[in-house]
C-alpha cells in the first residue's frame, strides 16, 4: 500500500510555490507573546485563515484563496504557548538554538554579523505569519484584518525593527517580485532569473513541480528522460514520512504534533549590487572576458535563467529564454482555466531546457564552472565527478541536501547602483532537517569548497568572502584548448540581515497548539 499524503493537513506553502501561481506580493509579520493563554487564543483566531494544500487532483490554481496565510513558530514561541517540557526537549538542537545562535555555522560573520542585522532579528521572535497575495490591495486588506485581531489581543504584539531603508523601522517585512516596464519578472536584484528549480518529492503532482531536474538522479543518460530521475522521498521535506535514509526523519514528540509539518528557515539577505557590477567590470578588463559570460559563469545560469552547461552560447541561451518568457506571458494572460492548462503544458515543455539538465557532459566544468553558485547548491548528481558507479546512484551524495526554496525579493535597486539601501531577497527554506539540509549547504557547499575539490574556495556569489578574498576557478573548455581563468579579490556580494528558524506545523498540530492539547506521553 502506497503511503498517501494528507494534503488537507499540510500548510499550502510547503507543497505549493505560491509565486508559480501569481502570488507576487508578500508580507511577513513577526509576533511576540507575553501571555500564553492569549497567545493560544491568537493562534486559535488565526486558524480559519491558514491555507492548507488544495486537492491536488483538480486544478490547484482555482482552489487557492486570493490571499494566503501561513503560520510558523520558533522554539521560544512554542515554549510561550505552553508546550510540555518533554515535547520541547524532543525538538532538534539547531531549532532550539535558533539562527542567531547558529550564525557561525552559517558563516554570518563580518558584514553579516548579528550587529548588522535588522533589529527585529535580535529580539525574541515567537510567531511568523506569512501573507502572500496576487495584488497589493488584497495583501493590504488581509493585513488590516489580521492587524485588528493583533491589536485587540493584549497578550501578543507585532515586533518592530525591520529596516525599511529610509532610516526607519517597520513592524513587517514586505517583499515583491521585481518589475520591468510594468511587468513582473522572476529576477532578483543582480538581474538573475531566480527560483527556477525546486525539489520534487513523492506526493507532489505535475502542477506542483517537475520530476525532471526536481527529483533525484537515479541513472546516467539523457537528463530530459523521466526514466533517469525519480521523485525524492517525502520525508526529506515533510515530517512523518519515509526519507532518503529509508526511515522517518527525526521529529518532535508526539508524532501527531510533527506529522505533516516541517522546519522552516527565514533569512533576509542584502545584495551589494554596486560591488557586484563593479567586480564584473573589473574582471572584464582584467581577464578580457565577456561580461554576460562572466555573470553566467558565476551562477551557472545566464541572467535569463538558461543553464550555461547546456547553453554555453549566449545567442542560444537568449533564444530559449525568450521562448520561455513568451510561454510565461501566455500563462499570465490566459482567460479561462482551459487556456491556462494549455499554456501551462506548453510552458512545461519549454521549461525542460531550464530544469532537465545535469553535469554529466561537463564534469570538468568547461561550460559551467564546478564552483558556480547553482552547481554548488544543487549538484544534480555530479559529486561522483565522472567516476560512474562510485555510489549506489549518481545522486547519492546530494539527495539528502535538497532544499525547498520560497521567498521573494524586497526593496528596489535602480541605477546608479549602490550597496547601501534596503534591497535583497527574502529566502525561506523548507526541510525536514535544518541541520542536515539548510545548514550543511551553507557551511560545506556555499562557504567551503572541499566537496567540489575546490579547496577553500567559496560560492562566488553567496559566499562570505572576507576583505575581498574570494576566489573562483573558471575551468576552460579543454576540448578547445582554452586555459582556465583564476578570479580573485572577490568581495562579499551578499550580507545577512538576520533571520530565524521556525517549525511549520500541520493543520492538526496548529489546533493542538491552540487548544493546549499537545501531550508527549
Amino acid at each position: 500500500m502506497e503511503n498517501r499524503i494528507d494534503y488537507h493537513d499540510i500548510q499550502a506553502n510547503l507543497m505549493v510555490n505560491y509565486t508559480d501561481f501569481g502570488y507576487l506580493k508578500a508580507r511577513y509579520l513577526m509576533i511576540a507573546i507575553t501571555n500564553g493563554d492569549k497567545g493560544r487564543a491568537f493562534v486559535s483566531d488565526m486558524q480559519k485563515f491558514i491555507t492548507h494544500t488544495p486537492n491536488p487532483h483538480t486544478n490547484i490554481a482555482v482552489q487557492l484563496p486570493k490571499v494566503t496565510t501561513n503560520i510558523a513558530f520558533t522554539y521560544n514561541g512554542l515554549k510561550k504557548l505552553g508546550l510540555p517540557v518533554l515535547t520541547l526537549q524532543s525538538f532538534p538542537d539547531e531549532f532550539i538554538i535558533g539562527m542567531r545562535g547558529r550564525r557561525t555555522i552559517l558563516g554570518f560573520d563580518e558584514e553579516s554579523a548579528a550587529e548588522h542585522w535588522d533589529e527585529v532579528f535580535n529580539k525574541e521572535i515567537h510567531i511568523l505569519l506569512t501573507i502572500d497575495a496576487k495584488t497589493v490591495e488584497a495583501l493590504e486588506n488581509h493585513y488590516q484584518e489580521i492587524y485588528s485581531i493583533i491589536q485587540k489581543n493584549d497578550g501578543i504584539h507585532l515586533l518592530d525593527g525591520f529596516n525599511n531603508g529610509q532610516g526607519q523601522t517597520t513592524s513587517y517585512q514586505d517583499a515583491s517580485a521585481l518589475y520591468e516596464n510594468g511587468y513582473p519578472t522572476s529576477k532578483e536584484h543582480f538581474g538573475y532569473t531566480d527560483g527556477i528549480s525546486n525539489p520534487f518529492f513523492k506526493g507532489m503532482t505535475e502542477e506542483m513541480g517537475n520530476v525532471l531536474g526536481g527529483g533525484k538522479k537515479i541513472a546516467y543518460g539523457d537528463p530530459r528522460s523521466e526514466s533517469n530521475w525519480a521523485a525524492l522521498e517525502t520525508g526529506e521535506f515533510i515530517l512523518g514520512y519515509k526519507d532518503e535514509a529509508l526511515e522517518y526523519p527525526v521529529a518532535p514528540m508526539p508524532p501527531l504534533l510533527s506529522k505533516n509539518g516541517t522546519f522552516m528557515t527565514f533569512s533576509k539577505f542584502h545584495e551589494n549590487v554596486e560591488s557586484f557590477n563593479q567586480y564584473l567590470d573589473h574582471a572584464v578588463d582584467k581577464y578580457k572576458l565577456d561580461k554576460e559570460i562572466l555573470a553566467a559563469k558565476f551562477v551557472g545560469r545566464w541572467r535569463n535563467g538558461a543553464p550555461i552547461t547546456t547553453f554555453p552560447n549566449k545567442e542560444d541561451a537568449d533564444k530559449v529564454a525568450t521562448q520561455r518568457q513568451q510561454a510565461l506571458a501566455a500563462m499570465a494572460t490566459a482567460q479561462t482555466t482551459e487556456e491556462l492548462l494549455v499554456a501551462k503544458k506548453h510552458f512545461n515543455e519549454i521549461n525542460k531546457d531550464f530544469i532537465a539538465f545535469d553535469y554529466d557532459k561537463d564534469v570538468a566544468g568547461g561550460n559551467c564552472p564546478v564552483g558556480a553558485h547553482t552547481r554548488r547548491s544543487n549538484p544534480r548528481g555530479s559529486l561522483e565527478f565522472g567516476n560512474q558507479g562510485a555510489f549506489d546512484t549518481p545522486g547519492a551524495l546530494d539527495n539528502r541536501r535538497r532544499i525547498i526554496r520560497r521567498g521573494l525579493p524586497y526593496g528596489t535597486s535602480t541605477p546608479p547602483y549602490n550597496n547601501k539601501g534596503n534591497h535583497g531577497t527574502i529566502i525561506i527554506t523548507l526541510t525536514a532537517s535544518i541541520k542536515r539540509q539548510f545548514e550543511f549547504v551553507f557551511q560545506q557547499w556555499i562557504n567551503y569548497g572541499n566537496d567540489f575539490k575546490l579547496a577553500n574556495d567559496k560560492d562566488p556569489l553567496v559566499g562570505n568572502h572576507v576583505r575581498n578574498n574570494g576566489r573562483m576557478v573558471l575551468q576552460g573548455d579543454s576540448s578547445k584548448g582554452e586555459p582556465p581563468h583564476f578570479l580573485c579579490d572577490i568581495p562579499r556580494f551578499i550580507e545577512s540581515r538576520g533571520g530565524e528558524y521556525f517549525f511549520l506545523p500541520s493543520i492538526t498540530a496548529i489546533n493542538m497548539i491552540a487548544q493546549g492539547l499537545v501531550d508527549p506521553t
Partner: protein
Amino acid sequence: MPNKAGNLYGLTTLCPLLNSSVHNDTFSPVIRLRELLEQYNIVADSSPMRLVPNTYLARFFILDDVIFQSFPYQEEHLKSKYLVFTVNFHGELEQYLEGMYNAIPTDIASIWRDAVGFNVKDAQSFTTYIKKCQVETTFLFNGSTDMSLADQLKSLYIKQEFSDFVFKNQGVEPSVLLQEFKKFIQMTNPTESFPTWKAGVSDLNDIIQYK
C-alpha cells in the same frame, strides 16, 4: 471468551474511516473527527460516554497508520485510517451497545459519520456495525471490581463521604458520634441508589448526583 473477565467486558473496535476523496477532496474527515474528539478533552466532563450505562472506562483515538520500522523492513501502510473505540463495561455486549445507542444516538451519529459502512438507524444496526468492527482480543484496563457501575459509584460516594465524616468527628463524645453517624447514614442512604457519585466526573467539585 478472551474479551471477558467475570462480569467485565473489554471491547476493542477498529472502525475504518473514509478518506477525503469521498468529499471531493474538499476537506479531511479525519481532521474533523479529531477536532470533535479533542473537544471531549477540552470541555470538562463533556464526553458522551459518561451517559452510557455501565461504562467503566472508554477511549477513542485515531489510528493514522502503522509505523515503518525503517530499512531493511518493508514499508507498509494501512488502506484507511481507523477510529479506535475501546471500552470496558459491566455486563453483556449486546445489552451494553443497545444501552449506548439509546443513551447517545446523536453523539454516535457525529462520531461515526465518516466511518466506512456506517449505516446505523437504530440500536440493532449499531450493534451489528460495532460487532463487525470488533477485534477479539483482551484489552482490559485495570482498576475495576466486578460490580455494576451503579454499585461501584455508590461505593465510591460512600467512601468519600465517610472519610469526610471521620475527619469531622474524630475525638467527639460517643453519644454525639452516634448521633452524627445516624445523620451520616440518613444522608448517604447506603441501601438506596441515590445519592451517588456522578458518572464520568473527573474532579471533586460537584460530584454528587441526588436522583
